[in-house]
């Protein structure tokens, strides 16, 4: 198993100041049916992502800040992921762009400083991090 982290920009219009909610695609797996690769060349099939998300929901939906870990090795909490769904194939809301297979999340930012950083434009993206098997594509 190898560590990985993938970054995606927060949807600019998806910030609710009153409720401290930040929404956006945490990961875009495919566009126009084509698997997308990040700067390190990594990609994740939507169905693989869906299974991982199901486990993530059960394990506590931790939302960190800059992937900083505390002394216990767990992410320093900036809040929690309160909504998430993988839209792929036919599983998507009516009207959603059919060319994008992606993970949509909404995070509630509890930490005051983290929230100020979001508003100040210091934190502008989501990054998913974890472990997985990395296979080279021929």
């Amino acid at each position: 198993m190898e560590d990985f982290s993938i970054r995606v920009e927060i949807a600019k219009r998806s910030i609710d100041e009153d409720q401290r909610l930040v929404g956006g695609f945490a990961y875009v797996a495919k566009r126009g049916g084509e698997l997308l690769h990040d700067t390190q060349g990594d990609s994740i099939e939507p169905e693989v992502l869906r299974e991982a998300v199901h486990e993530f929901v059960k394990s506590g939906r931790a939302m960190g800040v800059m992937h900083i870990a505390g002394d216990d090795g767990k992410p320093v909490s900036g809040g929690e992921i309160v909504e998430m769904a993988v839209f792929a194939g036919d599983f998507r809301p009516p009207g959603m762009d059919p060319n994008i297979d992606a993970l949509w999340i909404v995070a509630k930012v509890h930490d005051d400083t983290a929230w100020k950083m979001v508003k100040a434009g210091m934190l502008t993206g989501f990054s998913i991090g974890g472990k997985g098997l990395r296979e080279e594509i021929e």
Partner: protein
Amino acid sequence: MTAKKFRLRKILLNEISLVDYPAEQHSVVTVFKRADQPIAEEGGVVTDLEKMQAEMARASTNIESLSKRAETAEAALAEATKRAEAAEAKVVVLGKKAVAGDPEEDDILLKASDPTVAAEIIKLRKQNVAAAKQLAEIAEAGEIAKAVARVTSDFPNLPVKAETFGPVLKRAMGSLSEEDATELARVLKAADGAIVEATRAAGLGLQFVAKGSAEQEIEAKAKEIAKAESVTFAKGYDLVLQRDPALYNRYLAERGQAN
């Protein structure tokens, strides 16, 4: 060079983080590459002395030039080090202020405009909060222990368990004004003292008699008779009951009421 492409499978998501996002996609990873260079130039033995001297002179000039450049670089490095140390000291001060919860901390964080530093400060601040919580719990336990000890030392005769009443006393004292707390302590102390007296009296076989009651009157008369007629107090008591049936009846009525 063609970039390798990978597919991740069997993934386990540990965390979704809020992060800064580099404006330039490729700034995520910086790779230092060095082009391959020949180790040595081809060439044979130089036999021409003049050519050799010319080469030496040129090399000497190069060395001189390189030395000057090295000196300049050294000075620049010293200056950069000085600036870095000053910046580091400033960051330490800013960091301490931010972690300590200085009112200006948020501005400092935002001016620092380094999300990683800010995230570290969030981490430290959370550790501070956890430590403060622990300290508060320790202090609370200490206060309860003090209250339990106070019950044991100041009110040892109250019909309570110190372990149970101690926390109650602590909460009660904490919610009262200083004057009220003092009054409560005084009443508890008095109650404790009364219990001591009652216990002592019970040990001596004495009974407590209400003021103005028939029983008190009987006792008073019994003492008078005992003294006047040189009989025991018990005999005097009997005589009072025989000689004053109305008083006896009042005594019985009061006993009945009491029961």
